[in-house]
């Protein structure tokens, strides 16, 4: 198994794992549809890993709904942050598998890339858990949540649309 194949398998596993955990933990009455969405998301990971242009959007869009559904049950909302990190790790591993394409891709470069994904995951996990607990510990009106979300949205929009287009 080449490095590329290993990273691609890890990517699919991470996304599938996130979907399965969300489905297993969730109590939504629409679990069938959520299951179909998750399955579709995992299935779409395969073409995104091998075809050009490489785009993880379809895979992520269909993997996210089962995780969103966890918000309906206060007992499972704490899982949203860690599962989001797992989704991100899946996407990052997929991108790493793109980079590992080519005969000269070294194992060292793959290890370095995986270490960076680990750092990003750790940072994200801390951020997500911090926000989760902040939402639990501090009394937040839904209106305040809206304002926070809107502010973050505006801030990110400013950053995101700065780069040149392809």
């Amino acid at each position, binding site marked *: 198994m080449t490095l590329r194949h290993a990273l691609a398998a890890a990517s699919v596993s991470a996304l599938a794992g996130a979907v399965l955990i969300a489905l297993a933990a969730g109590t939504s009455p629409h679990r069938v549809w959520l299951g179909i969405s998750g399955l579709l998301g995992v299935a779409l990971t395969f073409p995104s890993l091998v075809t050009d*242009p*490489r*785009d*993880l*959007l379809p*895979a*992520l*869009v269909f993997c*996210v709904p089962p*995780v*969103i559904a966890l*918000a309906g049950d*206060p007992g499972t*909302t704490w899982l*949203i*942050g860690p*599962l*989001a*990190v797992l*989704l*991100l790790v899946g*996407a*990052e591993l997929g*991108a790493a598998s*793109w980079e590992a394409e*080519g*005969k*000269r891709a*070294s194992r060292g*470069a793959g290890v*370095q890339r995986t270490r*960076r994904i680990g750092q*990003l*995951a750790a*940072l*994200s*996990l801390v*951020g*997500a858990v911090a*926000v*989760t607990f902040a*939402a639990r510990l501090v009394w*937040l009106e*839904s209106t*305040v*949540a*809206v304002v*926070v*979300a*809107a502010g*973050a*949205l505006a801030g*990110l*929009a400013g*950053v*995101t649309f*700065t*780069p*040149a287009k*392809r």
Partner: protein
Amino acid sequence: MSAPAIERSTTTTLTPARDGRLVAYTVVTFGVLAAALLMGEAALVPLAIPFALALALGLRRTAPVEVTARVTLFADQVLEGDEVEGLLEMSWSGDFDAHAVIHRLRGITIGARTDFDERVDAIERLEVPFRITAAQWGRHSLGEIWLRLTLPFGLVSWTGRLMVGPSLRVLPGAERLNRLLSPDRSRTAWGVHGSTRLGDGHDFAELRPYVPGDRVRDLNWAATGRHRRPIVNRHHPEVSGDVVIALDARDDGSELARRILTRTARTAWALATMHMRANDRVGLVGLGRSTRWLPPAGGRLAKYMLMETLLGIGGEAADGVTTSRRQVDVPAGALIIGLTPLHDDDTLLTLLRWRARGRSLAVIVIDPDDATAPAATPSERLAARLWGLELDARIAALRRRGVAVVRAPVDGSMGPVISGLRRARQRSGRRVG
């Protein structure tokens, strides 16, 4: 190996392009936050946090990156099978992960491969020594040099072609050289050669009384003293003269160019050998270069000179650079034999210019069409017909100006070429070698 090094350098600005994750992360982040906004559900915000963080980290630098690159080959001419060392140097501002590639190599290999792929992490300057092997004779460009820069955690990349590497002249090995230049059929013309140059030579012929118009330097003073009247020396005309073979063939890597190159080389060598045997001084001129005289003994050195001249012509073409050709001058009085497929307007103009200056000129058309696959589609057939008409027009233009033109037969035999040239020259009242 101490042959001259060749290098090429360039500065290129690479613009950023988005990664396949950027849109996905943006949509997930905005979508989740928008859902949180619409549903008033703060618990959804942690779902957006990892993707938002990845976006913030990944987009911290998005400005274009200026890259300075230089590639050096420590030889510009080698033999088939030789190895040449090279060095690729690139620098930019900022710590990037770099991925450099040299690809589309023709006729040369890097190790056992025909491309080159080097990846390094987080550096500002990349120096990669490499070693290439000249696998096949011809003029080969090192190939396109591409660079991809990414930032650690970055969601954009900077990718671009920096340059086409310098080209390398690869001369055939001794065995292949002999096979390439000495087909048996080219021997048919030996021994049927006449002088190309009229005029006084160094060989004494006879004495005769001075007549007005004789040069004073030709006075034979001893005879003049004995006879008490001016007597001049007469000389045999030189039995040999100058023949310049003008070569026009470029190795741009295509099958057609290679065929023209091979046929030009064979025809040129057959002509050169024939003239050298007749004690002519044979020069080679690649269009765009100065005349090079072959050693009178011929031999392998002369063959290598021919191949070097031939492969030297297409330097610009091999490197993908277009430059205007320098006007080539050849010695006055030399017979010029142009070997050309007549593809190029410049070539035609050069030949006509020589003719207009009164140079003795013959042209052998190396027409590769008879050796190419027949046109398959109607448009190919039309193109072939149009080119045929154009070629006829070019040949007619040369003939109108008194230039002897023959087509080189596909089998490489020189007999028909020589007899054709001789007939054509006789029609125009001149002699040919």
